């Protein structure tokens, strides 16, 4: 199939950037990234700079791939990362617009590549359970009720891709944040640091320049791992308990 691509080209963080138009011949069994590989092979052979885009596992799990396809982070297919999107969802003659994730907290590095370092900062602020190596008790000493284990798992599924931020009209990372807080907050091991954690992580989220959530819900729709929206409710609950409710200890 013949496709027209409008791809965001930006040399570096300072460059203003623009959309460039390319034609590419794709096959329906290709993945979206394989289609871009084909484009890049052509660009290189004809002496042009290939389109830079982030990717690694190409299995939908590492969270590296990140681009906005026709206005939608990771493209049109539900619960699917860009690398898992296949060209059979497109038709001959289609025009596809490809842009980087847009967020003040994710500055563009080059073309479709953005800097998501702010996510690591949010985790550094408390997205962990402090358990030094070697100090762990016997694993089966504490049972975890199935429902808690399941909810923790559903939240732990987040691949840190940033699509939620790219989709959110407020540029908020609340879904990402809520997912980590819910994962750790549902487990008995996560309780001692629970309220400290939410306060520190929320503050770091603010300082990194993410916007505030107004419960639009676009994030959960865009999320390739279908992180449920109620993790944001959990985030708010714990945050209010910690601050207004005074649960945060020293």
């Amino acid at each position, binding site marked *: 199939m013949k496709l027209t691509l*409008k791809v*965001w080209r930006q040399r570096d963080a300072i460059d203003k950037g623009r*959309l460039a138009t390319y034609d590419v011949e794709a096959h329906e069994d290709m993945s979206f990234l394989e289609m871009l590989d084909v484009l890049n092979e052509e660009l290189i052979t004809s002496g042009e700079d290939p389109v830079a885009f982030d990717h690694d596992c190409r299995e939908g799990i590492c969270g590296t791939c990140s681009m*906005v*396809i*026709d*206005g*939608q982070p990771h493209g*049109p297919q539900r619960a699917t990362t860009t690398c898992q999107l296949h060209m059979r969802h497109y038709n001959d003659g289609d025009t*596809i*617009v*490809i*842009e980087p994730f*847009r*967020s*003040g*907290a994710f*500055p563009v590095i080059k073309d479709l590549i953005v*800097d*998501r*370092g*702010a*996510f*690591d*900062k949010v985790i550094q602020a408390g997205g962990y359970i402090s358990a030094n190596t070697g100090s762990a008790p016997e694993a089966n000493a504490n049972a975890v009720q199935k429902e808690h284990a399941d909810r923790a798992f559903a939240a732990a599924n987040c691949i840190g891709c940033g699509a939620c931020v790219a*989709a*959110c*009209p*407020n*540029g*908020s990372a609340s879904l990402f944040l809520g997912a980590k807080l819910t994962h750790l907050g549902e487990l008995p091991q996560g309780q001692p640091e629970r309220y400290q954690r939410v306060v520190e992580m*929320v503050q770091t*989220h*603010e*300082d*990194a*320049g993410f*916007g*505030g*959530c*107004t*419960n*639009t*819900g*676009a994030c959960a*729709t*865009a999320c390739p791992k279908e992180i*449920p*929206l*109620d993790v944001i*409710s*959990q*985030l*708010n*609950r714990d*945050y*209010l*308990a910690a*601050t*207004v409710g005074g649960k945060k200890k020293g």
Partner: protein
Amino acid sequence: MSEKSRAGGAAAPRRPRTPSALLKFVMAVSGVFLLLYVVLHMIGNLKIFFGPAAIDEYASWLRTILEPALPYEGMLWIVRVVLLVSVIAHIWSATVLTLRARRARPIKYAGGSYRVKGSYAARTMRWGGVIIALFVIYHLLDLTFGVANPNGVHLEVYDNIAAGFAPERWYVTLFYVLAVVALGFHVQHGIFSGIQTLGWSSNSRERTIKVVSTVFAVVLTLGFISVPLAVTFGVV
């Protein structure tokens, strides 16, 4: 921390700011007060269907609640103060969050707007709010201060309403209807949003909450618009 790990976020380190989660809390709590007010107001307005006397009496009664423990219009002023504080808090937090959103999402997508980005109501909260605010200003001039009302006599509530929504002033009625519909949308998402903000939502309850807030908003909207429509079409 590491010198080399790339600084996330826009270049300069900013000073710590009030977390958006707290602002949202302010918005939700003030929203609850506003909501309570409009619900009571809507119910009160329905008195008009029991005749002119009913609503005028009701207006007087409002001013004498808890007398003599409170002075004349005492309760009303308490409500007015709470309302005013809520409105200011509500608008302030909405404005700060909007400005933040601008900075956090400075560039629009060229590839069209995101097709599944949340309900219409959710996307129009800000403009809906502005419309409601403009409406309220006009509404106060109309039915409270009377300056925009052909009758405009204090405490002649029935006559004011009857004159205001007279058939030849159909455009006023239309404006009211549109504003109230905007309010309906605002409230529909507002209820869901407020519950989420206060941390009471959960995955299993999400659907129920959405249904309840929709029903609530529809009832509220119909309750409000029934009054001007009834007057314009001569039902009362």
